């Protein structure tokens, strides 16, 4: 029963990882950009949440109403001013520029908020739980998981049922021809990054409620998000959710064996998938 419990908790943890990964997956899908600063942007969102909670004395979840638009705006500006200049056939510029951004964000956070670990206080919701059979499920992990499903369903709907999504798919398929059809790819990329950082903001707030965070916490989040994307298969959002769940379960089962093995077990699950099925478990049909 303990093992079932650990697996179920791991599945719920996977919801958080899927939130980390969704933004990464989205921008890779639209503009083939791998953002090394993604983890630091998640942590930045946590800190923004903290500031809003301090300044307005509101519940962290209510802070989402402010943090999501700020991060989205930041994403649009970042893409238009910096990242659009790096796009092209050469792989190095986007990689190195986002790497530089990662170092800058980390150290700005360090200066602004010191290295002390912080946490968002969400009150009773953190400890509340619901009984399902003989299992006790935390309300917060449950809420995170449901949010991940809603976010991914929303992105999926947006991609395939809206004009914006059609624009995303068009520039993803062929930038030049999309441009000829009257789409401004720089603007479309800006919107994609805005959307991705909006999702990142949600991930950051849930991260901050669940665990404590510090300016150096970004690297770990990037790696979890990345592993979820690869396990699930590139370009498949539901696959990313599945990847997050697999990663979460591997970690909680590893921690059940020995707390020192928690992170290692997640990485090993990732390496096994890489060895056995390098295209991921549920890759989008390539075309």
């Amino acid at each position, binding site marked *: 029963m303990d093992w079932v419990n650990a697996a179920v908790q791991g599945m719920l943890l996977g919801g958080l990882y899927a939130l980390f990964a969704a933004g990464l997956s989205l921008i890779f899908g639209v503009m083939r950009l791998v953002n090394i600063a993604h983890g630091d942007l998640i942590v930045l969102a946590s800190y923004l949440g903290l500031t809003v909670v301090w300044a307005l004395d509101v519940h962290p979840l209510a802070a989402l109403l402010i943090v999501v638009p700020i991060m989205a705006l930041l994403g649009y500006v970042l893409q238009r001013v910096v990242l659009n200049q790096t796009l092209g056939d050469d792989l190095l510029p986007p990689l190195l*520029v986002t790497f530089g951004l990662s170092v800058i964000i980390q150290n700005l956070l360090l200066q602004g908020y010191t290295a002390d670990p912080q946490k968002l206080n969400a009150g009773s919701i953190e400890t509340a739980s619901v009984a399902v059979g003989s299992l006790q499920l935390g309300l917060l992990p449950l809420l995170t998981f449901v949010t991940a499903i809603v976010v991914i369903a929303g992105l999926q709907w947006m991609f395939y049922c809206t004009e914006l999504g059609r624009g995303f798919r068009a520039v993803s398929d062929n930038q030049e021809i999309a441009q000829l059809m009257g789409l401004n790819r720089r603007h479309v990329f800006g919107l994609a990054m805005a959307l991705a950082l909006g999702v990142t903001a949600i991930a950051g707030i849930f991260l901050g409620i669940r665990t404590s965070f510090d300016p150096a916490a970004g690297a770990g989040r990037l790696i979890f998000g990345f592993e979820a994307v690869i396990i699930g298969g590139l370009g498949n959002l539901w696959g990313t959710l599945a990847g997050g769940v697999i990663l979460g379960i591997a970690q909680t089962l590893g921690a059940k064996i020995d707390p020192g093995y928690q992170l290692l077990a997640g990485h090993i699950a990732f390496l096994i998938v890489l060895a056995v099925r390098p295209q991921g478990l549920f890759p989008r049909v390539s075309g």
Partner: protein
Amino acid sequence: MKVTRTSRSAKIFTVISLLALLILAAGPYWAGRADMRLMSEIFLYLALASLWNLMAGYAGLVSVGQQAFVGFGGYMLFALTIFGGLPPVVAIAGAAVLGSLIAIPTAVLIFRLRGAYFAIGTWVMAEVFRLSFAQVSSLGGGSGSSLPVGIVRSIANGRAAREALSYWLALGIVILVIVAVYLFLRSRQGLALTAIRDNELAASSLGIDIWRTKFVVYIVTAGLTSMVGALIFFQKLRISPDAAFSVNDWTAFVIFIVVIGGIGTLEGPIIGTLVFFALRETLADLGSTYLIVLGGVAIVIMLKAPKGVWGLIRARFDLELFSLSYRVEIEPKEK
């Protein structure tokens, strides 16, 4: 008309660098302890930067996980001396061999990832290494361990002699690395690598085995990086997983050095290392502001002058310090 690989500037540079090497080799006789430490650190960073440049600038293998091999090499130094009873200098060479060996399965796995995903894959590998060594309780687990006094004493007679030895080793390894990279690039393999750098499709249509060439570069780089890592912790005499596998110390700084100096050239890492240490020695008091400035400089250079400082110099003066590229010389006609 003839085709040559040398140039006047390269010949002058060879003479100057040989003279500089003589002066540097005599370092323990004229430099103070602090200067020697700083110079050793410069040598080791230059070695790391030249190696990363070989991978990223020539083989297109952008790794953000080279700390895996720095840390691995460091830990091998400790393991081989403490459990294997090897003399430290032999253990440093052993670390290179073991580093290459562990790189083989690593490469087989992460070579399945393309481009930018390869980069993050190398980082995951470095994390796996870090977490694994943190589990080895005989090497101090998560809190690390120091090199036992007996082993430290066995290195040399007294502290001055030990520090001189470690300085010479650092100087030796940076020469070894630069000469190795230089000879590699001049070899057949290096020609293949340059072709891949310029156009992968064209290179493969000429019959170059791209996977194999990159694989060889990765393995060789891993071995040499492990050796540098062993030497880094030979100087520190203490190791812990967080210090050994630090992404900032062993990868971020190295990437900044190469980008600022000029990626894809042998001269770039040398210029970059000098710029990096000049900045560090003047701005280090600013703490994290220094890192913000460094990151900003690297971004601006990547966007505005992607060939780095050396690229700017070369565009203006047509200089080349290492005889690598072919050039055509037209001799004056005899009367």
